[in-house]
C-alpha cells in the first residue's frame, strides 16, 4: 500500500492539532498569569478545556491511543477546574504546561512516524495527582434562584457552574432579550457579546424557542455588576428587554462607576503576547514550537469565489481585446498597438493567476485513495475475503471538488470489485488462483484528463448472466443479440442489479446507474472491461478541473454552444457528399477510420438550416473521449474562448447533452455541451461500427 495515501489523513490531523496546540499554549500562558489573583477568565479556561477535548476526539478517530489517553486526562483535569472541583493553583498550571509539552512531543513524533510513542506513565500520574485536590464546597445548585426552568434546562453543566460562580461573586444575573434580523444575527450577536464581556461574564447565549422566521430572538444570560440601566446604556438597543435576578440586585451601585471604553482588552492581549516568547523558551528543548506542517486550511468556497473572480477577469479581458480590435479598425493605429500590447501582458498575467488559483485547488488523488484503503480493509474483513490493494499514481492531482464528487462512485466501484468481483478464498483455491485477491487502484494523467482505473483479478463479468437478468427485468428482449460492450452498458441501467439479494455492502440500494450519472455530472466517463474468470476493470476518465475551460464556440441554427476544447481533437470543413450512410447512421472516413456523425441541430431539435445543408459545406468538430471518436456537425465554427462554467442548477440538471451554462465576454450566456453524455447516447447500440 502506498505511503503517500495514508499520509494525507495524517497531515490533516497534524495541521488541525497544531492549530489547537497553538491556541492552547497561548491560553495556558494567560491562565498562568491569573494564578496569583486566583481569578481566571472563564473563557480562557473553557477554551483550554475545549482544546484538550478536540484533540482527544481527533486522536480517538485516528486510533492514537497514547495521545487519546493523555488528552483525556488533561480534559478531565480541566473539566474539574472549570467546574470548580479542582483548586486553581500554581502546581496545577505547571502540570498543564508539562502535559502540553508531552502532547507536542507526541504529535511532533507522529508527524514523522505514525508509530512514534512515549512513556506516558509519569505525566499521567502527575495529572492524576493534581486532579485530587479537595473540591470546593458545592452549593445547592441554583435552588434559590428565580430563573425560568426552561432556561436552566438548556444550560450545560459548565454553564450552570459559571452561573453559580457569578452569584457567589455577588454579581447580578441579567437575562437580556433581543431580537435580530436573520441575515445578520450572528455578527450582531458577536458584537454584543464582545461588548458585554468587558463588563462581566456572558454565561450563556440562548436562542428563543419558536419558529425560525424572518427574525430571531436571543436571550443572553449575563453576570455582571452593572445595573439594568447601565446595560441599556451600554448596548443602546430599542428592542432590549432585561430581566434581572440573583442576589445582587438593582440596589447595588458600584461607586463612581464609569462605562469603560472597550479598549482595555487589546491591552491585555498585547501584554500577553509580549510575555509569550518567554514562555516558549521554557518549553523543553526537545519539543520545538515551530510549525510542523506548512499548510493552510482553506475553505473550498473561498477558492470557488477566487476562481469565479478570475473567471470574470478573463471575461473582462476578452471585452478589452474586442475594444482594441475596434479601435484598430477605426482610429488611432499607434494607440491601438499599445493597447494590444498591454492587453497581451494582462492576458499573460491573468493566465498565470488562473493557473495559480487552479493549482491551489489541486489535491493529490492519494487523499481519495486513502479513504479507499480503509474501505477495502473493512469490506474484505466483513466479507471474509483476502485482498491485496495495489495503489499507483497517488500523487496525480485533481480539482478538489472533483475529488469530493468522485469519492462516492469510486467507493461503490471498489466495494463492487471486492463484493461481486473477487471470489472467496476457497473458490479462488479451487480455480488455481492465489487465495489473496488483487485489486489495483491506479491513477494517471493523460493530457487534460485524469484516468482512474480499478482492476480486480476476480471472476469477471458473467455476460450471459447479465443478459439473462436484463431479459428477466424486461430491459431487453429475449432474442436480442448484444455485443459485449452493450452487455456491460446494461450494468449501468437504472434498476439493474446482478444479485437477487442486494448485498449488505455494495447494495444499500445504490446502483451502478447512480455511479454513472455522478461521473457524467463531472463531464467524465466510465468504461468496463472484463474477461471471464480473470477479472474486470472499471476505467473512469475525468477532466482535471471544471471551473474555467477553453471552449470551441459553435453555431447551430440560431443558437450558440460551447464544446469543451479538451475533448475536441480537430475541426474539419467537409462537403456534404463525403458523408456516407452505414446502417442508417451517417459517418465519414477520416484517415482510414470511420467516424460517426451527430448532427447537433437534430439533437436539439433546431430545424433552421436543415434544408440548406445539402448544398452547403459543413463544419465538423471531431470530439474524442477515451478511445471513442465522433464528429459533431455544426453550422459555423465561431472560434475559441475561455468560458466560466456555471452549473445549470437543479431545475435544469436533467437536460440531456448539456453540461452547464457559460458566460461569454459579451454578457451572452450560452450552453456548454456534455460531450461524454452526447457521445454515449449516440453510440448506444452501434458498437458494430467499432468506433
Amino acid at each position: 500500500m502506498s505511503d503517500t495515501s495514508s499520509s494525507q489523513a495524517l497531515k490533516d490531523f497534524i495541521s488541525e492539532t497544531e492549530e489547537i496546540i497553538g491556541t492552547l499554549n497561548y491560553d495556558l500562558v494567560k491562565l498562568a498569569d491569573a494564578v496569583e489573583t486566583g481569578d481566571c477568565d472563564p473563557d480562557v479556561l473553557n477554551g483550554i478545556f475545549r482544546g484538550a477535548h478536540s484533540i482527544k476526539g481527533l486522536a480517538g478517530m485516528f486510533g492514537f491511543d497514547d495521545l487519546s489517553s493523555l488528552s483525556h486526562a488533561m480534559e478531565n483535569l480541566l473539566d474539574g477546574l472549570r467546574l470548580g472541583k479542582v483548586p486553581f493553583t500554581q502546581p496545577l498550571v505547571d502540570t498543564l504546561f508539562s502535559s502540553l509539552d508531552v502532547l507536542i512531543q507526541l504529535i511532533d513524533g507522529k508527524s514523522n512516524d505514525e508509530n512514534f510513542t512515549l512513556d506516558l506513565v509519569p505525566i499521567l500520574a502527575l495529572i492524576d495527582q493534581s486532579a485530587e485536590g479537595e473540591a470546593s464546597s458545592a452549593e445547592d445548585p441554583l435552588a434559590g434562584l428565580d430563573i425560568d426552568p426552561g432556561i436552566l434546562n438548556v444550560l450545560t453543566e459548565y454553564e450552570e457552574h459559571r452561573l453559580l460562580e457569578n452569584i457567589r461573586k455577588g454579581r447580578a444575573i441579567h437575562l437580556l432579550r433581543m431580537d435580530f434580523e436573520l441575515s445578520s444575527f450572528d455578527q450582531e450577536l458577536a458584537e454584543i457579546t464582545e461588548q458585554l464581556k468587558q463588563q462581566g461574564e456572558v454565561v450563556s447565549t440562548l436562542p428563543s424557542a419558536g419558529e425560525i422566521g424572518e427574525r430571531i430572538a436571543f436571550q443572553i444570560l449575563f453576570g455582571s455588576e452593572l445595573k439594568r440601566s447601565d446595560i441599556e446604556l451600554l448596548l443602546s438597543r430599542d428592542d432590549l428587554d432585561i430581566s434581572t435576578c440573583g442576589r445582587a440586585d438593582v440596589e447595588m451601585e458600584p461607586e463612581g462607576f464609569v462605562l469603560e471604553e472597550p479598549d482595555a482588552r487589546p491591552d491585555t492581549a498585547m501584554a500577553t503576547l509580549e510575555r509569550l516568547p518567554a514562555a516558549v523558551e521554557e518549553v523543553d528543548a526537545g519539543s520545538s514550537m515551530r510549525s510542523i506542517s506548512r499548510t493552510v486550511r482553506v475553505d473550498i468556497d473561498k477558492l470557488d469565489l477566487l476562481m469565479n473572480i478570475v473567471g470574470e477577469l478573463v471575461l473582462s479581458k476578452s471585452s478589452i481585446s474586442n475594444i482594441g480590435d475596434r479601435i484598430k479598425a477605426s482610429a488611432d493605429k499607434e494607440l491601438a498597438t499599445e493597447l494590444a500590447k498591454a492587453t497581451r501582458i494582462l492576458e499573460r498575467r491573468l493566465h498565470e493567476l488562473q493557473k495559480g488559483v487552479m493549482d491551489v485547488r489541486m489535491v493529490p488523488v492519494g487523499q481519495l485513495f486513502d479513504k479507499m484503503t480503509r474501505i477495502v480493509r473493512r469490506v474484505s474483513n466483513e466479507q471474509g475475503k483476502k485482498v491485496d490493494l495495489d495503489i499507483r499514481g497517488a500523487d496525480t492531482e485533481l480539482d478538489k471538488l472533483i475529488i469530493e464528487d468522485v469519492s462516492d462512485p469510486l467507493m461503490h466501484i471498489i466495494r463492487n470489485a471486492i463484493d461481486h468481483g473477487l471470489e472467496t478464498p476457497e473458490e479462488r483455491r479451487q480455480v488455481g488462483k492465489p487465495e489473496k485477491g488483487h485489486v489495483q487502484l491506479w491513477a494517471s494523467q493523460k493530457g487534460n484528463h485524469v484516468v482512474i482505473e480499478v482492476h480486480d483479478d476476480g471472476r469477471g463479468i458473467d455476460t450471459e448472466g447479465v443478459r439473462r437478468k436484463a431479459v428477466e427485468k424486461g430491459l431487453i428482449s429475449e432474442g436480442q443479440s448484444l455485443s459485449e460492450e452493450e452487455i456491460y452498458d446494461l450494468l449501468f441501467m437504472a434498476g439493474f442489479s446482478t444479485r437477487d439479494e442486494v448485498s449488505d455492502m455494495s447494495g444499500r440500494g445504490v446502483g451502478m446507474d447512480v455511479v454513472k450519472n455522478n461521473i457524467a455530472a463531472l463531464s467524465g466517463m466510465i468504461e468496463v472491461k472484463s474477461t471471464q474468470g480473470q477479472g474486470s476493470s472499471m476505467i473512469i476518465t475525468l477532466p482535471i478541473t471544471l471551473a474555467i475551460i477553453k471552449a470551441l464556440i459553435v453555431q447551430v441554427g440560431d443558437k450558440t454552444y460551447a464544446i469543451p476544447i479538451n475533448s475536441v481533437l480537430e475541426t474539419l470543413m467537409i462537403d456534404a457528399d463525403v458523408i456516407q450512410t452505414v446502417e442508417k447512421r451517417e459517418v465519414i472516413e477520416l484517415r482510414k477510420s470511420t467516424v460517426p456523425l451527430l448532427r447537433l441541430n437534430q439533437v436539439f431539435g433546431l430545424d433552421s438550416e436543415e434544408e440548406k445543408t445539402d448544398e452547403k459545406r459543413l463544419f465538423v468538430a471531431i470530439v474524442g473521449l477515451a478511445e471513442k471518436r465522433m464528429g459533431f456537425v455544426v453550422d459555423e465554427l465561431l472560434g475559441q474562448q475561455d468560458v466560466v462554467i456555471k452549473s445549470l442548477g437543479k431545475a435544469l440538471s436533467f437536460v440531456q447533452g448539456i453540461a452547464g451554462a457559460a458566460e461569454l465576454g459579451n454578457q451572452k450566456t450560452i450552453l456548454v455541451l456534455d460531450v461524454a453524455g452526447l457521445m454515449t447516447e449516440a453510440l448506444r447500440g452501434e458498437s458494430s461500427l467499432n468506433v
Partner: protein
Amino acid sequence: MTGYKVLVVEDSPTMRQLIVFALKRIRGFQIVEANDGVDGLKKLSAEKFDLILTDINMPIMDGLKLVSMVRNDPNYKETPIIVITTEGAIEDRERALALGANEYITKPIQTMKILETVKKLMSV
C-alpha cells in the same frame, strides 16, 4: 433517490469531514456543514433539513441550545436530531436527550455507528 437534506454541526473540521464522509455512503444525502451552533442555526433558517447531527461542545453556541431551538420550531418538531457527545459527558448527553434529541453517538465516531443510528431514524 432519497433526497434528504442533512445538517452536520461540528466545530472540528477533521471530525466534520469524517462525519460527512460516513454520511455520504447513504445515497441521496445532501449534506450541509456548519462550524458551530450559531452557524448551524443560520443554515437551518435558510433551508429545511430532514436530519440534524450536532456536536455538543462547541464555541459560541453549543449543541444543547441548538437542540432546544430546533425542537421548539414548529417546522422542526419531528426532525430527527442526533447529538455527538464525548463518552464521559453523560450529564450533557442526558440533557440533550431530555431536550428532544432522538439519538446520541459517542466519540470517537465510527462510521458504522453513524450509519446504524441514521438508519434507525430514517428510512434509507
